[in-house]
């Protein structure tokens, strides 16, 4: 069983969804087909790349903690998601 230790408190994402939903969809078009690392407040993209490992390397290189971002994916604009 995994129990969270006192020193590993997960980041706070309580305001993420509300702010993220306010980002105009058109602003995401240039990230189509890429993975993106969002700030915890859902207001800005901090890194992007073709795969999650690349994004994580960018974050580390920039001195950011990969555990303190939200990793998402921007779907290609001409594809429907079918589950």
């Amino acid at each position, binding site marked *: *069983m*995994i*129990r*969270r230790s006192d020193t*590993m408190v*997960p*980041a*706070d*994402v*309580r*305001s*993420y*969804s*509300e702010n*993220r*939903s306010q980002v105009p*969809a*058109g602003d*995401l*078009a240039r990230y*189509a087909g890429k993975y993106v690392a*969002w700030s*915890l407040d859902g207001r800005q993209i901090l890194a992007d790349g073709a795969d*999650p*490992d690349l994004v*994580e390397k960018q974050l580390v290189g920039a001195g950011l903690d*990969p*555990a*303190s*971002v*939200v*990793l*998402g*994916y*921007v*779907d290609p*604009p*001409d594809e*429907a*998601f*079918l*589950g």
Partner: protein
Amino acid sequence: MSLRFRYQLAPTSGFVIPLGGRSVRPRPVVPVIVVGHTGSRIREAILDTASDDTVFPISLAAQIGVGLTGAPMGKGSGVGLIAVPLRDAEVTLRIATNQEQREWQAWVSFTSGSLRRPILGFGGFLQFFTATFYGDREEVELSVNSLYPGT
């Protein structure tokens, strides 16, 4: 009390006929914190009532310190019916809004198959919630049910 998440709007290259010609597709995507033995990561994941299991990419297991050696194995398939390998392991999941946060232990699957974003399916996730999908408001509301094992 409940957790409400707005659908995320994905841009499209043209007009979506089934949606009356809109140029976005709304999707029930929520941020989920996944905690392992040595670390945690936050992923946007899609709520999928058609998925039997909750599934994450296998690369995440290594990032958070979840060992999969000897883990229970299985197979899964979706659209296209291409089977992908699954390995099951227990993690801590956490979701939160400004109104409420929830954290629980869950058995989830990790796959080496192609997975653009994690899937929050029945096992490990939706089994513990009453989920109401508001198509008109483009929101999903999650309320813990009697099976919810967490805090």
